[in-house]
Structures are given as structure tokens and as C-alpha cells.
């Protein structure tokens, strides 16, 4: 330490004998930076990184959304088209249908996830033998990457070699290779709902479990004293007190499913035809297959504002749950 002091303050080796103001003046001269400056120095790289990889692309995308840029013809001069891209999208029936498909997917998968997740939470909330083991097993799908889930479900659902079709044929007697879960118009939408529910119901379960564990025992004890049946306790205590947590799960899953891309792209790529083409897949096709960069930027902004608006409601709901 003494050595360091000597290095940092070579001309103040005998500083011990100097008065306090002189000491602080010397320290300031040596370090030369205020606490605030040092704090900014530490934060600056993070801010620079955020600006470079989050804010700059967003601002650039906003700029591009007002242009007619087509990357397959990037030699053409960039032309400012005002709000034409937005107007095109908001009058395009195809995009409208894709948004409806997305909404159907969101409603069906979130509803199923809430039912399954809440049911699992009620089960796990009871203390039983092997309770921790089963909780871990149930949580496993949630920990996998959507790309991995998409790939292995593609194999599971394969009509010739996939075990899923064999399982169905075992119960129904329908030949396994006579139907394809991802290739048939009637089945493909339900397949993506099924896989998404398999993956994300554990997440809803976790949130519901937090809600269930926050209910004080004395309320149930009071209900027992009043001879309320288990069914009555569920409808009058459990469900009303878990509703804020359920709302939180619904909002979060709805926002996430609205943006869903990777898993559906791997499972069906939007097919057969455009039955499972969610709006995120349409966006990818407009941007990287048709190379309509200006148009796809405008669509991305519409989706961004929608998700941002929904996220505001989500944060508000989250704060309400926190205050509870």
C-alpha cells in the first residue's frame, strides 16, 4: 500500500505531515475525477452498446419505413414515400388475415396454457411425495430453446417415423401415416397451439404457484370453521386471490405469442399454404424473401407499437400485483 501511495503521489511522500485541506487538494489533483464522472465512465460502455445495438437500428428502421427501399434493387436511389408503406399495410387484406391468424393462435394457446398451467399449479401446491422432482420435470420444457423444441417436435410429429402419430393410432385406430399434424390444414394450427402450450404452460404454472402460495392459510382455516366445501373454497378464496397473477400470466404470454416466430417457423414455416402464417413470418418473408425493406420496416413498427402498448398495460398490471 505504501509503495502504491509512493507511485501515485511521488511528490507527496511526506504527506502525513501536511494539513487536511492540502491532503484533499492533493488527492483531487492525483485522481482528477469526481464520483459522478467515474460513475459515468463505468456506465458509458453499456450506454454506448445499447445505443449501437438497440436505439440506432430502431431509429434507422423508422427512417427506412418512410422510404421505398428494396434491397434486391439497392442500386436504385432511396425515395421518400411518406406514409405510403403504412397506408399499404393498413389496407392490405393479406396482412389483416395474418393478424387474425396470429390473434387466433394467441387466444387458443394462452387459454390452454392458463387452464393447464393453473391445473398444474393446484397439483404442485399440494405437498406430496416426489413433489420437487415432478416440479423440475414439469419445468423442463420451459428451459429449452424454441429452436430445439421446434426441431424435436418436427421429428416427433413426422408421419412415418414420429411416435406421436403411432400414439394417436393406438387410441383411435387411424393408420399412423394417414395424417400429418404439420401438413394438414385442419391440424396444423392446433399443432402449433399444442407445442406452444407444452412449452409454456409450466411458465404459467410458476406464476400461478406464486399466487397460490401468497394466500394466507388463516383464510382457509376460517373457511373450514365455517364448513365451506372444497369447491366453495376454490371459487371464493383460491380463484379470486389468484386472478391478478393469472392476468399477469395472460398478458405476458399474449405479448410473447404475438411475437412468436422461431418455433412456428421451424414446425410449419407458415404452412400448409398460409394456414399457420403468423404476422412475424409474413414480416420475415417481406424483409428477407421479397426484400421489401421499406414496407417490412413499416410493418415492424406497427408490430413494435402494438407490443409496446400492450407492454405498458403489462407493467401497470405488474405494479398492481406488486402493491397487493
Amino acid at each position, binding site marked *: 500500500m505504501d509503495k502504491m501511495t509512493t507511485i501515485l503521489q511521488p511528490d507527496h511522500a511526506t504527506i502525513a505531515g501536511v494539513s487536511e485541506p492540502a491532503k484533499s487538494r492533493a488527492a483531487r489533483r492525483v485522481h482528477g475525477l469526481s464520483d459522478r464522472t467515474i460513475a459515468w465512465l463505468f456506465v458509458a460502455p453499456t450506454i454506448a452498446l445499447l445505443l449501437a445495438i438497440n436505439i440506432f437500428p430502431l431509429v434507422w428502421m423508422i427512417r427506412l419505413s418512410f422510404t421505398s427501399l428494396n434491397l434486391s434493387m439497392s442500386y436504385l436511389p432511396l425515395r421518400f414515400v411518406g406514409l405510403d408503406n*403504412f397506408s399499404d399495410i*393498413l*389496407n392490405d*387484406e393479406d396482412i*389483416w388475415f395474418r*393478424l*387474425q391468424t*396470429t*390473434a387466433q393462435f394467441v387466444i387458443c394457446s394462452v387459454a390452454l396454457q392458463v387452464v393447464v398451467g393453473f391445473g398444474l399449479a393446484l397439483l404442485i401446491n399440494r405437498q406430496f411425495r416426489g413433489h420437487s422432482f415432478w416440479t423440475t420435470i414439469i419445468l423442463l420444457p420451459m428451459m429449452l430453446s424454441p429452436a430445439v423444441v421446434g426441431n424435436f417436435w418436427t421429428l416427433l410429429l413426422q408421419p412415418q417415423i414420429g411416435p406421436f402419430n403411432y400414439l394417436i393410432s393406438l387410441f383411435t385406430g387411424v393408420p399412423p401415416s394417414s395424417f400429418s399434424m404439420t401438413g394438414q390444414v385442419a391440424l396444423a394450427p392446433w399443432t402449433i397451439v399444442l407445442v406452444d402450450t407444452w412449452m409454456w404452460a409450466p411458465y404459467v404454472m410458476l406464476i400461478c404457484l406464486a399466487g397460490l402460495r401468497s394466500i394466507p392459510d388463516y383464510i382457509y382455516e376460517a373457511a373450514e370453521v365455517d364448513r365451506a366445501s372444497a369447491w366453495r373454497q376454490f371459487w371464493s378464496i383460491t380463484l379470486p386471490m389468484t386472478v391478478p397473477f393469472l392476468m399477469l400470466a395472460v398478458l405476458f404470454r399474449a405479448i410473447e405469442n404475438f411475437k412468436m416466430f422461431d418455433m412456428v417457423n421451424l414446425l410449419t414455416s407458415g404452412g400448409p399454404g398460409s394456414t399457420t402464417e403468423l404476422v412475424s413470418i409474413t414480416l420475415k418473408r417481406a424483409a428477407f424473401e421479397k426484400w421489401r425493406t421499406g414496407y417490412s420496416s413499416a410493418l415492424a413498427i*406497427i408490430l413494435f*407499437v*402494438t407490443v*409496446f*402498448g*400492450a407492454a*405498458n*398495460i403489462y407493467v*401497470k398490471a405488474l405494479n398492481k400485483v406488486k402493491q397487493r
Partner: protein
Amino acid sequence: MSDSAVAKGAKGTLHRFFGRGRWEAVAMTLIGGGIFMLVQPFSIDLYSYSFVTILAGTVGFVIVSHFPE
């Protein structure tokens, strides 16, 4: 009534008018309504005005979230 009491009353009315809760509810209704308009299968006209509605709600929410409680 004294001037200060009148001024206090006016300030209270302003506070109540610009209270966050009510305006946040309005903004959230706009956002929710806009999202419904975006994905509903009934009318393309509603779809066409959905983005403006969501944008108004979102910008409104950002503004009113700075209002006093």
C-alpha cells in the same frame, strides 16, 4: 372566500382533472381497443384505423404516466 382558498380549490380541481388514474385508464382503453381493431375479423375499416388508435393510446399512456397520482 379568500384568494388563497380559491387558488387552492382551483389547484385541487386541476389535480383531480389531471389525476393519473383516470387518464391511464383512458389510454389503456385506447390501446386495448386499438389491438382489438387490429385483429378483429369484421371490418377492414376498423383495421385501417387500428394503428392510429394504438399509437394515440401508447403516446397518451407515456404522457399521462407523468401526471401526479
